[in-house]
């Protein structure tokens, strides 16, 4: 039951080879951007706005899926709409001998929606969403009371879910230009 989207961090996928970089041209980018804003946009509409045939868009889409750029088309569901009003970010610093143990127990908590091992100030980053503040407070207490946990930073998100800025995604073929400008 626990999110299948959550399982990849140390689990099944980590033994796979790193996805290789691929060549993406301007048309691919336009298709990606259109679908990021609305995955149900018809290929005919995308084709029209790009000045190519529907068949071309359809072919490009299939290629982008095949080479693994597009993982899947999905819905963006509102936490708030389903009553998960409270979303908190956790930065957790754990003593290394107990890192995996704390990480695994966090991942198993149903209210913990995202959890990853990380480098830097915190070695675990997690997000938890709950319907009430009390269960968030309990979660924090639980983490803090673990003897191997040295530090817990907690931040409540004001906007749930926070906005995503698809336009800020830079495709590698364009990045050289940005580096020169920057």
């Amino acid at each position, binding site marked *: 039951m626990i999110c299948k989207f959550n399982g990849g961090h140390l689990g099944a996928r980590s033994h796979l080879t790193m996805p290789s970089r691929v060549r993406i041209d301007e048309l691919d980018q336009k298709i990606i951007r259109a679908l990021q804003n609305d995955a149900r946009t018809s290929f005919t509409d995308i084709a029209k706005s790009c000045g190519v045939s529907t068949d071309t868009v359809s072919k490009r889409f299939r290629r982008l899926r095949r080479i693994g750029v597009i993982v899947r088309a*999905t819905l963006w569901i509102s936490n708030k709409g389903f009553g998960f009003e409270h979303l908190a970010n956790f930065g957790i610093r754990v003593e290394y001998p107990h890192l995996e143990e704390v990480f695994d127990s966090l991942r198993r908590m149903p209210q913990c929606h995202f959890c990853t091992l990380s480098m830097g100030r915190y070695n675990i980053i997690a997000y938890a969403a709950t319907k009430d503040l009390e269960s968030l407070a309990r979660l924090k207490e639980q983490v803090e009371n673990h003897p191997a946990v040295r530090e817990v930073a907690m931040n409540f998100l004001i906007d749930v879910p926070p906005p995503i800025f698809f336009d*800020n995604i830079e495709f590698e073929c364009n990045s050289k230009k*940005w580096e020169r400008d920057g």
Partner: protein
Amino acid sequence: MDEIDVAILERLTEDARTSFRKIAKEVGVSPDTVMSRYLAMQKSGHILSSTIIIEPRTIGYQALGIFMIHASTSRGSNKEPAPQDTSSIFNALTRTPSVFEVARTVGDHDLIATVGARDLEHLIKLRNIIAKIPGVKDIQISYWTEFTEFPELCRHQEHIIHSKEIETNNSP
């Protein structure tokens, strides 16, 4: 929300491009019903939009990271920054390339920016750009390379759709 709504959500989170006709067949209702249920869930705020998940590594992002930002206050270090201070930082972050998600927060930090980094050099460059935004006082950075999907926000879907089930499972 009833079983039909949940069934529609399940199919569309698996593939948002599934035609309403196909969903209708699988669920055992008319395509019009699927359409009206979909629109109703959009209107009620259950569905924000549909989107595609991309694999960041294929377009050259080797790591994702979060920048936890402290905003400075003009009124002494122990006070919360004024809302206008954080909103100007927020606006600057939303215009910064490779910053994917910006959240205003209350707690140990004032803002959290989720970024994509091409390599270590790029991460440092991003740090330098963000550190120069007026009002940014301190940044704590964590980054990771073991990720599967972007936007990772979609991680919530299954859990949220089946939240009722989970509540029942958890109750003593």
